[in-house]
């Protein structure tokens, strides 16, 4: 039983980092552009499918295949920003609805290109590691390490570099930042594109572990938003923490309670936390 608990917890942590990378994109986008980009899940899907295509069909080595995948996601993100999100800055409802329209379009395009037949990518790294009684596939550890590393790097970049400080200043007081010479339009577009690149990166790694379907985006954006809320929108560390907590809650919940309701446990947990601490676990008191 303990073995099951530990195993499931570790699984939850790893899935949680996937939730976390989306949550990071959600939190960044909300902080700088004032909207929640519900289509981030679709950009994750783009990254996943392009990686699969380049690795499985074209035969490129994984570390090479991953870059065009991220670029593809980022390019689509740039297009979306210029054509759509540019006009919905700070308008939460409009941004939400526009991104939902975008989901329809991207998912339909994916269905046309790749159909509903799940695609399973070949092994990138096989074999497992034994931690006591528990066995974990090496690839899962790599995924975890990469995602966590990227999230910490993002956090470091934002707190130390000039761009990061400009972004922080902008999120506190947009007018003042603008008056001090921060190119706010470029800043906002950059953040949108970066968050879609993050999602694409997450998708590329997702492809190494799970099978791909065009509907995967919808599930992950929901988890990403839940994780972002749990951790506190606006907190970068909160997105990683929120993601992991969400993943673990779902995994552990499935042990003791019916697995069919897996998605519900996370939801209930998030709602409960939200009522107790409206700003999320790490968010700022408003």
């Amino acid at each position, binding site marked *: 039983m303990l073995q099951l608990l530990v195993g499931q917890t570790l699984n939850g942590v790893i899935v949680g980092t996937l939730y976390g990378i989306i949550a990071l994109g959600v939190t960044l986008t909300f902080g700088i552009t004032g909207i929640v980009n519900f289509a981030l899940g679709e950009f994750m899907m783009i990254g996943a499918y392009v990686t699969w295509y380049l690795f499985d069909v074209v035969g490129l080595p994984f570390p090479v295949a991953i870059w065009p995948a991220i670029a593809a996601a980022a390019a689509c993100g740039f297009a979306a920003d210029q054509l759509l999100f540019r006009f919905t800055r700070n308008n*939460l409802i409009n941004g939400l*609805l526009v991104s939902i329209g975008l989901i*329809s379009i991207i998912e339909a*395009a994916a*269905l046309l290109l790749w159909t509903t037949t799940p695609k399973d990518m070949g092994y990138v790294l096989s074999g497992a590691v034994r931690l006591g009684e528990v066995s974990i596939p090496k690839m899962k550890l790599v995924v975890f390490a990469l995602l966590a590393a990227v999230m910490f790097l993002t956090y470091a970049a934002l707190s130390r570099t000039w761009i990061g400080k400009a972004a922080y200043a902008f999120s506190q007081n947009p007018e003042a930042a603008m008056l001090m010479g921060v190119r706010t339009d470029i800043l906002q577009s950059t953040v949108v594109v970066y968050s879609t690149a993050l999602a694409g990166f997450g998708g590329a790694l997702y492809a190494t572990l799970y099978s791909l379907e065009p509907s995967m985006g919808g599930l992950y954006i929901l988890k990403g938003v839940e994780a972002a809320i749990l951790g506190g929108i606006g907190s970068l560390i909160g997105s990683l923490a929120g993601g992991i907590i969400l993943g673990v809650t779902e995994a552990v919940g499935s042990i003791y309670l019916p697995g069919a309701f897996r998605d519900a446990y996370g*939801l*209930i947990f998030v709602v409960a936390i*939200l009522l107790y601490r409206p700003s999320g676990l790490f968010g700022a008191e408003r």
Partner: protein
Amino acid sequence: MKALLWVPFIVVPAFIQSNFILSIFIFSFILAIAAVSFNLIFGFTGQLSMFHSAAFGIAAYVTSLTASIFHVSFWLALFPAIGLTVFISLVIGSICFNFQLRAFYFAVITLAFSELARLVILNWNNITNGTLGLMVLDKPFVWIPGAGLMKIDGMFGWYFFSLAALIFTVAVCSLVLRSWIGRCFAAIRLNEDLAQTLGIDTFRYKLLSFTLANTLAAISGSLYAFYTGYIEPNYLSINQSLDIISMVLLGGRSSIVGPIAGAFMLTGLPHMIELSAEARAILYGGVLIATILILPQGLIGTLASWRRAA
């Protein structure tokens, strides 16, 4: 008077006999009830609720199951459905509105509960038959002076039945919105803090708006179930909520009847144009985006403002 606008709808069956077209009208009427009621909480009170499809779906199941298990009429079966909808609305509304959470969190929490409801229905196989869905074989009976008890079955019956239900919905919304309650809704939508200092109990009125909207959605769902004869858990999906939101946005959220136009467009057009499912999805997404960016007031709203400006 505005009541005259209904006349064309009443005479349509005299001219159009095609079952296909009448069916589109019936679906549009029933979904228009869901759209108009959604506009109560969204367009008029300014709260984005993602629970609407859940109210629609839960009521569909409760009405159908009550009618088939307990062998009661459609009307009697409506009572537990509406009762449950009111109860759930009060619970969820109390949770959301009591804590002064921002509008975004209301959307997320209602989404959470909606998904929860869908999962419950999906997995409660003994009663709901899970993904396979349920057949609804009963039909409603209506007492009509002169003809006695008539079964609503067949195109003409359903046409007038659903039209009557839509007129009822619009009448209810109209009466509520024209009263002081409607003014409170507007106050909450425009400036909630100010509304509070003017003595408006925003919690109470948001709860009222949410409950009323869900109750009318419950009626819509029950009608839909009895008309199509089949219900499944996807009735409670996020996609269904999004369909309803799109109808409201497309038709216009600042009027009571705008959503009716949206319902017709989004129900009728996909059937008129032969498209693959994917092409339809792309079109639907495109229309949603175009409406937000180009016609934020929706069709009816834009027409109305042109008329005012002229």
